[in-house]
């Protein structure tokens, strides 16, 4: 056993920005308390935004509209390709257009409960409040949400709730919302308010006198390493699901920006809270490079089942109705197929572990639309889900209108991320984290259609209000340039790391290491975790890391377009982050949301929280590669939604 | 607005579309006039003479014809100039071709540029042959178009050039008419079939109508 597990518990971390008072008034209170920057002074301030997804794109556009000078980065060739584009199902908002009993308070309640009581009430309430403004904003931008014949917006249901509050644009909601933000950003680029650096990846954070003052970034085309300076840095670089190698994340989504910020002093909160999405297309073989999600919205009309008998390998259509087990409907009659993701995933794992899984390797369950096609007609099903069915057919060469789809859980989203206060500021002053990059709003499990809501809430509304306070209080930064010793150190550090990667010239490819660490994480830090397993992983990770630096082979040079170098450099960070994820999972000896510790379950196999010991967010402070980090706890207080055993039965 | 039109690729296409449609309209009239040859030299020559007295007494002798000629020359010049400039832009936009080549688009579409050049050359020959008589075979007689037509189509090369040009015209009109409709914003998913049918019919009628004359001369139906 390494010393890494002998972490120390430091002083608690406290969110000093969340105001007191009734939860519904806190956001107004905070906005009023926050200092403002005079419009004339805003153009003197430069803000760096890393990432152009829903959070980054909307933040960059809004900050520029307010008059700030924004310098924005994305590693893709265009801001329009950020992985938010792939979100399918929809975006929640408490509009109550259905008159079905929805309200801001209900969305707040559902989200805190869905997150298994590991999120901050103030943040979640603010999110619910802002949700309604997001829809207005997006419609004004021309986002083509689905509409009914009367010309008004349509809604659908998502997991974990009993109202219809999800707005959608067929199965491409993320794409449409992202294009809205991208277009708003494009308008600001044209106006000269945003300076965009595409194909440029952040490789380090520059912290001067304890404040975030810039970044080190590599131009991915020329390989040139440059420094950029600002009065504040906003990370909107997404989640870290790619630690698992196979996930629904884009191939190039990575953790480097957040991990480098963590290494520079930003606390990393709840890293073990990862979401395993129940409805993904099962893998077909070792060549698999990524997994494809099938939107949760399919669970509105599709029914999930497996054969009642173990090892029943008859084709689906030969299994009679009374030999099928619609296990979600059976175990959770109130929510049926629309239970939250963590519960649906675990249930799928359980039936597969029992030997009742379907498809190659028994790693799959059926998602069946036969009943829906009978009820609504094939045309209606096609209108609602056509593009998803087409995608499934293309990948599997099976026709989902005729045979039930096969689905299996896959890593999808990471609730953990950089610790932020109510202002979305990390523990490094001037460094903000928004969207999936922070840990704030989803607790231990995110409800469907809430990621888009959070990304846009942070980017359009929260950050542009709260960053003012920091900039107003820090109006006159001393100029920093490349000759500052801190900057020189950060650049040298980056260059050394890349040069080392290029010089090892070993016998293993970057992908082979990525696959190895990913398989290890899926095995021991995936859907179900045990103390033994986590200790095994914590034992092996440092050895993989050591092997990586001995055997990695990166072809080419650093001063050219070099995708292998990009990949290898991201793996360097995964190899450290994975260790922290396992440690966090090990220390949290309870089950909650997406974090299921087998030692902590109810007699009927549900996640058992241990509120007395673990009702806190775990914020980790970096102490060095492979060295035990320091744990800072933020106690969670529940005044409005009282923790209970979640029940969806 | 003129500048906007001429400076934009979409505007230049509009110029091409409008000038093309003007020429197309003229061709339909021209073709109908040609068919009068089947009713004998008297009627055909009388029609040719009327073309010069059209609009009298309001217009002077041949004024109407000259107006038509001016409009047509303008249409040809605009059509050719915009075609030339747009083609240059297109070729510049795609300097490297694919190593793996595949036949692309319909024959009519692919032959628009060469077809246009062939038609341009044909027009020159056609005018020198039957309007000015400069290259006419066997003694051009002004005022006797019936005989002139028969003279031209009594030579092998007269028939060959003419028929080849008319076939090129058919292809050009087939894609050109539909294309012009798209350029002028008349295209839509629901109307597409109708537009393509009209384009095909126009192409067919013009081709058959024009070719019928040399065929008739060759077969002795007209002599």
């Amino acid at each position: 056993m390494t010393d890494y597990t002998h972490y120390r518990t430091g002083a608690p971390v406290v969110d000093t920005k969340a105001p007191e008072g009734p939860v519904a008034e806190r956001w107004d209170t905070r906005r009023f308390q926050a200092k403002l920057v005079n419009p004339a002074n805003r153009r003197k301030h430069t803000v760096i935004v890393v990432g152009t997804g829903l959070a980054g794109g909307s933040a960059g556009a809004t900050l520029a509209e307010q008059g700030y000078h924004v310098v924005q980065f994305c590693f893709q060739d265009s801001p329009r390709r950020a992985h938010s584009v792939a979100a399918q199902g929809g975006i929640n908002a408490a509009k109550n257009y259905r008159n079905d009993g929805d309200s801001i308070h209900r969305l707040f309640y559902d989200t805190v409960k869905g997150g298994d009581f590991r999120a901050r009430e103030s943040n979640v309430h603010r999110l619910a409040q802002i949700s309604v403004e997001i829809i207005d904003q997006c419609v004004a931008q021309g986002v083509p949400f689905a509409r009914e014949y009367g010309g008004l917006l349509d809604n659908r249901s998502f997991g974990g709730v009993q109202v219809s509050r999800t707005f959608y644009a067929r199965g491409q909601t993320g794409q449409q919302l992202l294009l809205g933000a991208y277009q708003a950003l494009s308008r600001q680029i044209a106006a000269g308010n945003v300076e965009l650096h595409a194909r440029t990846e952040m490789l380090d954070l520059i912290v001067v006198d304890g404040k975030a003052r810039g970044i080190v970034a590599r131009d991915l085309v020329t390989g040139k390493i440059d420094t950029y300076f600002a009065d504040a840095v906003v990370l909107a670089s997404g989640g870290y699901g790619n630690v698992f190698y196979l996930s629904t994340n884009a191939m190039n989504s990575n953790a480097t920006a957040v991990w480098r910020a963590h290494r520079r002093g930003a606390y990393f909160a709840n890293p073990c809270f990862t979401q395993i999405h129940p409805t993904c297309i099962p893998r077909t073989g070792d060549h698999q490079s990524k997994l494809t999600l099938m939107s949760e919205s399919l669970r509105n009309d599709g029914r999930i089942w497996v054969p009642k008998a173990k090892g029943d390998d008859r084709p689906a259509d030969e299994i009679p109705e009374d030999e099928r087990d619609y296990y979600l409907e059976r175990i959770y009659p109130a929510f049926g197929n629309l239970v939250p993701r963590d519960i649906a995933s675990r249930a799928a794992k359980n039936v597969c572990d029992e030997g009742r899984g379907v498809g190659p390797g028994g790693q799959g369950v059926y998602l069946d639309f036969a009943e829906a096609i009978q009820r609504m007609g094939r045309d209606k099903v096609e209108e609602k889900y056509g593009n998803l069915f087409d995608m499934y057919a293309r990948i599997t060469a099976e026709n989902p209108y005729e045979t039930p789809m096969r689905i299996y859980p896959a890593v999808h989203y990471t609730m953990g991320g950089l610790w932020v206060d109510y202002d979305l500021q990390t523990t490094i002053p001037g460094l903000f984290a928004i969207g999936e990059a922070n840990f704030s709003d989803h607790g231990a499990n995110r409800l469907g259609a809430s990621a888009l809501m959070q990304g846009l809430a942070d980017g359009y509304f929260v950050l542009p209000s709260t960053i003012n306070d920091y900039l107003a209080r820090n109006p006159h930064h001393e100029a920093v340039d490349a000759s500052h010793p801190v900057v020189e150190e950060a650049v040298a550090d980056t260059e050394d790391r890349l040069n080392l990667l290029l010089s090892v010239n070993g016998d293993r490819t970057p992908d082979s290491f990525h696959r190895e660490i990913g398989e290890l994480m899926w095995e021991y830090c995936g859907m179900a975790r045990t103390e033994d397993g986590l200790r095994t992983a914590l034992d092996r990770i440092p050895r993989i890391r050591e092997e990586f630096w001995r055997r990695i082979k990166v072809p080419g040079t650093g001063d050219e377009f070099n995708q292998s170098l990009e990949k290898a450099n991201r793996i360097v960070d995964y190899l450290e982050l994975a260790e922290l994820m396992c440690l966090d999972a090990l220390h949290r000896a309870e089950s909650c949301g997406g974090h299921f510790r087998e030692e902590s379950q109810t007699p009927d196999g549900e996640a058992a929280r241990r509120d007395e010991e673990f009702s806190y967010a775990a914020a980790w402070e970096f102490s060095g590669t492979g060295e035990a980090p320091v744990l800072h706890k933020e106690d969670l207080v529940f005044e409005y939604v009282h923790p209970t055993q979640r029940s969806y039965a | 607005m003129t500048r906007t039109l001429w400076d934009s690729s979409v505007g230049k296409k509009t110029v091409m579309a409008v000038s093309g449609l003007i020429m197309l309209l003229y061709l339909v009239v021209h073709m109908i006039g040609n068919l009068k040859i089947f009713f004998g030299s008297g009627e055909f020559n009388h029609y040719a003479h009327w073309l010069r007295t059209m609009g009298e007494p309001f217009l002077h002798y041949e004024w109407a014809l000259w107006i038509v000629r001016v409009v047509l020359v303008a249409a040809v010049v605009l059509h050719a100039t915009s075609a030339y400039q747009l083609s240059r832009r297109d070729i510049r936009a795609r300097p490297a071709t694919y190593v793996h080549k595949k036949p692309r688009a319909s024959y009519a579409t692919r032959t628009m540029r060469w077809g246009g050049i062939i038609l341009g050359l044909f027009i020159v020959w056609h005018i020198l042959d039957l309007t000015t008589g400069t290259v006419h075979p066997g003694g051009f007689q002004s005022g006797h178009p019936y005989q002139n037509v028969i003279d031209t189509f009594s030579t092998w090369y007269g028939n060959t050039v003419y028929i080849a040009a008319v076939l090129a015209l058919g292809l050009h009109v087939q894609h050109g008419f539909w294309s012009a409709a798209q350029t002028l914003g008349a295209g839509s998913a629901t109307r597409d079939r109708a537009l393509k049918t009209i384009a095909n019919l126009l192409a067919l009628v013009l081709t058959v109508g024009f070719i019928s004359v040399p065929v008739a001369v060759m077969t002795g139906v007209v002599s």
Partner: protein
Amino acid sequence: MKLTLRVWRQKNADAPGAMSTYEVDGISQDMSFLEMLDTLNEELILAGDDPVAFDHDCREGICGACSLVINGDAHGPERTTTCQLHMRSFEDGDTIDIEPWRASAFPVVKDLVVDRSAFDRIIQAGGYISAPTGTAPEAHATPVPKPDADFAFEHAECIGCGACVAACPNGSAMLFTSAKINHLNVLPQGAPERETRVLDMVGQMDSEGFGGCTLTGECATACPKGIPLPSISAMNKEWLRATRKVRR
């Protein structure tokens, strides 16, 4: 499956390029086309060669990053993105030609990677609705007739991959540009900027060096998202309307 690949290799934007031939073996029918290239790259790296550079990201057919011309077809033989193309579309023993998008507005960056920032600049010229954050009225204040909403959505589906330009013999960006114009111009929210949008975007498209449209229809055939050819005509109509109506 065993395949022969002929791949365009070009060190950088200024270097000359050429086709290189590689053999790959043990390819599964279930692999995506990009996973097949991953396999090749793993072998190249271990052999000490430079792996083939290609753009890719989501591998779900939505980000628009992947961009290969496969046997002369943008995105290959199926109507989808390269990442969603699977090897079952090929036969054992096939020779496959893989080339980058070709257009002077899309210069090659390396191997199969091209620079498509011209598309971004077309959007920057007017492919947006000016609605600064905070200014929005209640979403239900303006109902949008369903046919208009559906028309907008159909065009908003464009993923900006550039297959239309790659397939067009003139390297024209008319389909891409028209998709965004039609999406925004049909909506009531897009009406105030309707004329300037189309004039500015078409102007930018021209100045980026894209070719004109000769209505060959190749773009719509190659489009993985099925943006229809008549959308070009609809844009032309908007453009002509704007030249008459614009108030600057």
